[in-house]
């Protein structure tokens, strides 16, 4: 898995000086390690996407359909009519350059076409050429013909954007490259040119209810492993239910949380919390995915995958929905779900059964974030916590892009961390909260074949972690995102090893004093708790 270039080689190769020639005169060059494999036809077929075929993104010939250009331009016209954001963002950019050095991919690669403004110009040049009068003048008007090379260039760079919205924070008009990338990817999907890494999970999720393609029995057995581990560490047997009708709450989280480390430790944290509370809740195998790769494909596909959550909540007759820790999942739930698949009239406005708190901010969508739920419990003194169990951890917190800039959940997780840990240190301001840096692998870019790109995209985040590691001895990077939990460990290992990655609920699970627990010797990872190290050795 490890990529060939050493960190210092990649670092010293970064150069922010753009080439001499104008950008339109520099054709795209497909660099190995920077682009994904193409979608397999069987996956596209399964979800009813057009123009699937055997093709290879590394080949010269992409086997595009004959009328690909008309499809692209018609699609573009359609999107311009449907999205004010798109039309506006095509028209009003003044190219002030404020966004230029805000993109983690630009900071990491130095490729000028990764400046958000230029990534947008790749598409804007087509807009001008085909949808404005001045664009008929061609290059001098910033316009160019749509050719196969131009399409490939758009493809190449629109899968070097993680839709993190950092550029949008700094833009004086709020132009959001994430939005433009989403439009570009809609067009790419009309031509069957999705990536393999995105289309596989899409088809999985449509069929099995989750991106990883876990079928009901696999989900169940994954849980059994976690429950056994929990029993070993805490002496408490937790017994969650699945697809149970009449539960008060449906809990939905990314499937990665019950699939692999370190996500499973976060999941153990949820399980302990719900058991501690005696929460009347259920998991669902049908709606077993909080994340939504449709979001990286088309608004329709996003709606199709997301629909399962409300549908399942209705079938099971729950009162409201609780959601686990995930970034883009929460952007979709917060900003899209109610619009797409609401109104959720079959549900009730969420009220915490333990504190009586009405979650006014979620009264229409009826879905509450686990950090909101937990912070409220702690504030009301409903949880018995032993902070010292996390004393071996020196924690920092990574704000995930989507929950930061598409929601604004900053204080809730910090409140939880400070309630369950004694040692917490912030990364520098220019890299946290609304200024946070992406992990470099969001929006469906967590593909093995683009590891070099991902290491570079994640460099700004990793470098900020390095800073607090050196300054405060930080050894644990916490977050509230499943993609982060999957991709930050290899990123951190690459740039500066010896910092772990965990979900906030894992830290909570460590500190939570469970009723009837045995003397806790291990944390949720099975590592000895502070002060228990020797005991472990004796055994």
């Amino acid at each position: 898995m490890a990529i060939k270039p050493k960190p210092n080689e990649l670092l010293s190769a970064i150069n922010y000086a753009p080439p001499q020639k104008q950008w339109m005169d520099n054709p795209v060059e497909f660099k190995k390690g920077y682009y994904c494999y193409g979608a397999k036809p069987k996956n596209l077929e399964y979800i009813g996407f057009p123009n699937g075929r055997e093709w290879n993104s590394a080949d010269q010939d992409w086997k595009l359909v004959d009328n690909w250009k008309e499809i692209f331009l018609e699609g573009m016209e359609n999107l311009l009519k449907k999205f004010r954001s798109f039309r506006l963002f095509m028209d009003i950019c003044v190219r002030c350059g404020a966004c230029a050095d805000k993109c983690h991919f630009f900071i990491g690669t130095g490729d000028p076409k990764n400046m958000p403004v230029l990534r947008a110009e790749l598409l804007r040049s087509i807009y001008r050429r085909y949808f404005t009068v001045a664009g008929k003048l061609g290059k001098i008007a910033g316009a160019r013909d749509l050719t196969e090379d131009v399409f490939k260039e758009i493809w190449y760079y629109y899968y070097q954007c993680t839709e993190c919205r950092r550029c949008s924070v700094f833009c004086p008009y709020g132009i959001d490259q994430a939005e433009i990338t989403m439009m570009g990817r809609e067009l790419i999907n009309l031509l069957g040119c999705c990536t393999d890494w995105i289309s596989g999970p899409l088809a999985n999720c449509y069929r099995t209810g989750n991106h990883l393609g876990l079928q009901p029995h696999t989900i169940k057995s994954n849980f059994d492993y976690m429950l056994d581990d929990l029993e070993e560490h805490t002496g408490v047997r937790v017994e969650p239910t699945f697809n149970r009708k009449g539960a008060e709450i449906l809990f939905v989280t990314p499937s990665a949380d019950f699939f692999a480390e370190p996500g499973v430790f976060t999941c153990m944290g949820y399980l302990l919390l719900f058991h501690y509370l005696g929460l009347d809740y259920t998991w669902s195998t049908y709606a077993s995915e909080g994340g939504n790769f449709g979001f990286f494909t088309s608004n329709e596909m996003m709606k199709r995958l997301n629909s399962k959550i409300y549908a399942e909540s209705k079938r099971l007759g729950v009162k409201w929905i609780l959601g686990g820790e995930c970034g883009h999942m929460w952007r979709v739930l917060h900003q899209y779900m109610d619009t797409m698949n609401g109104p959720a009239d079959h549900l009730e406005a969420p009220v915490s059964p333990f504190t009586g708190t009405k979650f006014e901010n979620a009264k229409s969508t009826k879905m509450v974030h686990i950090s909101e739920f937990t912070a409220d419990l702690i504030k009301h003194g409903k949880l018995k916590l032993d902070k010292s169990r996390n004393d071996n951890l020196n924690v920092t917190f990574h704000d995930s892009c989507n929950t930061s800039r598409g929601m604004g959940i900053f204080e809730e997780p910090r409140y939880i961390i400070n309630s369950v840990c004694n040692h917490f240190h912030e990364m520098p301001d220019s890299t946290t909260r609304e200024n946070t840096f992406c992990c470099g692998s969001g929006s469906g870019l967590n593909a093995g074949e683009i590891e070099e790109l991902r290491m570079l995209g994640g460099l700004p985040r990793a470098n900020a972690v390095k800073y607090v590691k050196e300054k405060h001895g930080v050894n644990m990077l916490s977050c509230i995102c499943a993609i982060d939990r999957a991709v930050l460990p290899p990123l951190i290992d690459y740039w500066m090893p010896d910092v772990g990655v965990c979900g906030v609920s894992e830290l909570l699970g460590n500190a939570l004093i469970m009723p009837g627990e045995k003397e806790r010797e291990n944390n949720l990872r099975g590592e000895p708790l502070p002060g228990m190290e020797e005991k472990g050795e004796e055994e």
Partner: protein
Amino acid sequence: MGMIFSLIAVIVLVAVAFVGTQLHLSGLFGVAIPYLAFLVFIAGFVRKVIKWGQSPVPFHIPTTCGQQKSLPWIKQSKLDNPSTTLQVIGRMALEVLLFRSLFRNIKTHRTDGGPVYGSNKWLWLGGLAFHVTFFVVFIRHLRFFTEPVPAWVNMLDAVDGFVQVGVPHMLITGVVLLAAATYLLLRRIFNSQVQYISLAADYFPLFLIIGIALTGILMRYFIKVDIVKVKELTMGLATFKATVPDGIGSIFFIHLFLISVLFAYFPFSKLMHLAGVFMSPTRNLANNSRAVRHINPWNPKVHLHTYEEYEDEFREVMKSEGIPVEKE
């Protein structure tokens, strides 16, 4: 290429106006073109805004730049993450009047140890100085289109001339406008990243505005024109009784022509950010999408993979795991 092209374009425009006045086409340059330009401006501006308005805002996508409103004891960042219309107005006011987002600007520096970030307020300062002074200069010019001149316009003039240098008093905004526009131009030329992204459409309005400011300053302090006659002409335009008095210098017509070009060019250019900033869905929406349902007028009908289909495929394994099913 874009820069040279734009510079030449503006020089040609100046020459056209100069030659025009030499050929005694002052009726064309003093009346017809300004009227036409103004019409194009209004029609084009309205058309563009309507065009934007015709595309709906299907999803609720504010960019949140501060703490959300959630639990009552957590302090919300009301101006950077507004949850009510009033707070949105506050956010927009900060954005439009003080360039809130540009004020955030930071600069990334490359070091051997990786990227580091430093404060960078120059673009904010230059941009704000440019826009504020442009606006004041625009308002000041109302004295050419009103009779009697409203007291507040005179007052603005007096404040603007507070330094009391020269005769007539130097108006500070004109000078700052020229300086700020020049800064924005130089930045575009010498900052290699900005230069790389710049198009002719970025240089052209800057050259045009610098031309307008220069001719204005020249006219006021150096190549004097008969200001009474100028006012006669501008009042004629304002009252639809157009007259072109003889003996106004060419410099005035060059000034007026460049302004006419700016007006006519405006609706077809990036300058429409003036209207666009108010319509940007990442800024003008409250972050309350979980509390109030946002409606998508074209919410599509889509194929769904229903629970029934799911259970049909997985019923046996569900049963064997003790997971409840609808149909036994």
